[in-house]
């Protein structure tokens, strides 16, 4: 049986710059982290996985289905959803409306259902509400359901992005620096939540993260990108002591272990 998610030889060029060079990445289950210095191509990889950018070469399959050529909304409908590094909520909509937009690809109502306001519409909307509240409950935002998203504190906005992504009922979740700007406690709570999601819902998660403590703690596997190339992959401990990784990502050899721990 094919892996849940399998990317092979993904290459992306922006003009003369090669952002990604023949990157392979496969995931069956659990949490895989992608790390690497700024500009290593991590977010570009996400943009390709979710159909926002077309890749120049390579292939990506999800549950055995080729993703290249599909629109972002089709990919979301298949069961891949993401969050963004620089939070991209629907700022002037309420918290619960943000989550409801996330459910868009799971709504089977047509224009006529909406205009006629029949029982099907009422049932669906009530069901959507219930599910949205449950999701907000999971990320701890149920009390803010009717607040405008723009007014939430930073950490809450990140958690709302997570709830919005979960609303599309993904099998694979792509999180782009979910703990950026969070306090240590908040980040810890979020990681526990991610673990829960993996256990409860059987979600597979790909995580882009700079916070090494988080990466080492939560990942089943770590992939290191540098200048668009995969330079290491394996269990966190192994990757952490890889000479190329230390040189490329963590800086000079001598002080690397301490710096890694502090970062």
């Amino acid at each position: 049986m094919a892996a849940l998610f399998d990317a092979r030889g993904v290459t992306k060029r922006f003009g003369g710059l090669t952002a990604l060079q023949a990157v392979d990445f496969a995931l069956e289950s659990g949490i895989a982290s992608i790390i690497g210095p700024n500009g290593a191509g991590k977010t570009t990889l996400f943009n390709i996985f979710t159909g926002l950018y077309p890749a120049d070469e390579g292939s990506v399959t999800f549950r055995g289905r080729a993703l290249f050529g599909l629109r972002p909304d089709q990919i979301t409908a298949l069961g891949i959803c993401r969050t963004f590094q620089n939070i991209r909520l629907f700022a002037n909509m309420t918290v619960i409306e943000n989550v409801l937009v996330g459910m868009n690809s799971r709504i089977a109502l047509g224009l006529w259902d909406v205009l006629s306001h029949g029982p099907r519409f009422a049932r669906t909307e009530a069901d959507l509400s219930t599910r949205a509240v449950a999701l907000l409950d999971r990320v701890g935002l149920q009390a803010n359901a009717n607040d405008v998203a723009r007014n939430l504190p930073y950490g809450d906005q990140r958690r709302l992005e997570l709830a919005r992504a979960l609303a599309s009922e993904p099998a694979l979740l792509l999180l782009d620096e979910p703990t950026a700007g969070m306090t240590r406690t908040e980040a810890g709570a979020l990681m526990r939540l991610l673990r829960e999601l993996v256990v409860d819902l059987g979600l597979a998660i790909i995580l882009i993260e700079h916070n090494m403590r988080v990466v080492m703690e939560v990942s089943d596997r770590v992939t290191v990108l540098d200048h668009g190339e995969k330079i290491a992959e394996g269990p966190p401990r192994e990757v952490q002591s890889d000479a190329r990784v230390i040189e490329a990502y963590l800086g000079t050899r001598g002080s690397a272990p301490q710096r890694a721990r502090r970062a």
Partner: protein
Amino acid sequence: MSLYSVLATAAVALSSLAVATAPRSVLAFLAFQGALLFVYLARIPTWLRVGLLGVALLLLMPLIGAFNGYYLEVATQVGIFAALALGLNIVVGLAGLLDLGYVAFFAVGAYSWAIFGSPHANVIFGGGFPLAGVWFYAFLFVGLFVAAITGILLGLPVLRLHGDYLAIVTLGFGEVIRVLANNLDKPINLTNGPKGITPISRPPAPLGLPYGEYFYFLVLLIVVVVVLVNRRLEDSHIGRAWEAIREDELAARAMGVPLVRMKLLAFACGASFAGIMGVLFSAKQVFINPESFTFLESIGVLAMVILGGMGSIPGAVLGATVVTVLNLQVLKGLSLWLNELKNAGVTVLGYSLADLPTQFEPAKYERMIFGVILVLMMIFRPQGILPARRRQRELAHLER
């Protein structure tokens, strides 16, 4: 009964009395409109609000029309523009797609009935026209569909454009439709060019209603339907998808919103309201020519949406009312009044107004005052008169 309930009822009663006793006074009619706004905004029970507005619009307004037919014409125009503003509100206010050529859809609707509802169609098809007046009702839907399809045709090439670029292309589209209407009198005479089409058939008015009242009621009915459709769209996954596109197109796509379908749907819905009103407009006017569908009209409707409050249904209706009444009554009344002062030779600070050069003709201030009002509004209340309020979702299990 609360104080507000008494006040609201009294306001409607007194202002309609005022209009009845002084049917020529613009101020009395403005008081009547103000009373309706008060009823809408005041904290009164819903049954009273609906009741008062219903009585005022269904009974008092036609009665006022019997005293002064021009007021009914104003109310009808307000209704037509309210429907246009509501349609544009979907495109601009909800989906965030700036459309500067919106009146083109109005033109498409108007010409679809004008051609077949007048003897002009004989020029194209040989004979058998005009269609009987009852066909008008069918053409309300024909106009709706033709405009919706035109909306989709406009939408397809501009899907990749945003903001300024989209605005420029839609502006061009609006002009193209007007220029087509102006020039399609050859090789086949479709639109009769700048001379326009007349006479356009009207449906037989039921119950022997005069046409003023008939069109007023028909416009009112269409506006009510349009408001209802607008509200249902807004409170559904479709409306949420539109707003998500407005807020962040890229995030919306990534969250599973089918961008192409939703944008086309927004263009089609917005256009369809203009199309249906276009059909009605051509029957009401009996005569149409390309002059009715200029760029200025598109901008006027946009001004209504922005003035009222983008993305807000009551805002669009109020914006349409304010702009229409300003243009048809307040500014005209003002320049008439100034003219009277001038003709009477009133002196201000020792200067006789009669000596004013013709360049300072009061009628020439009208557009300027309108412009100043728009500028002041945008400075002091950029969100519009009745900005869109975030809907609070009823969540039973959340009561704290």
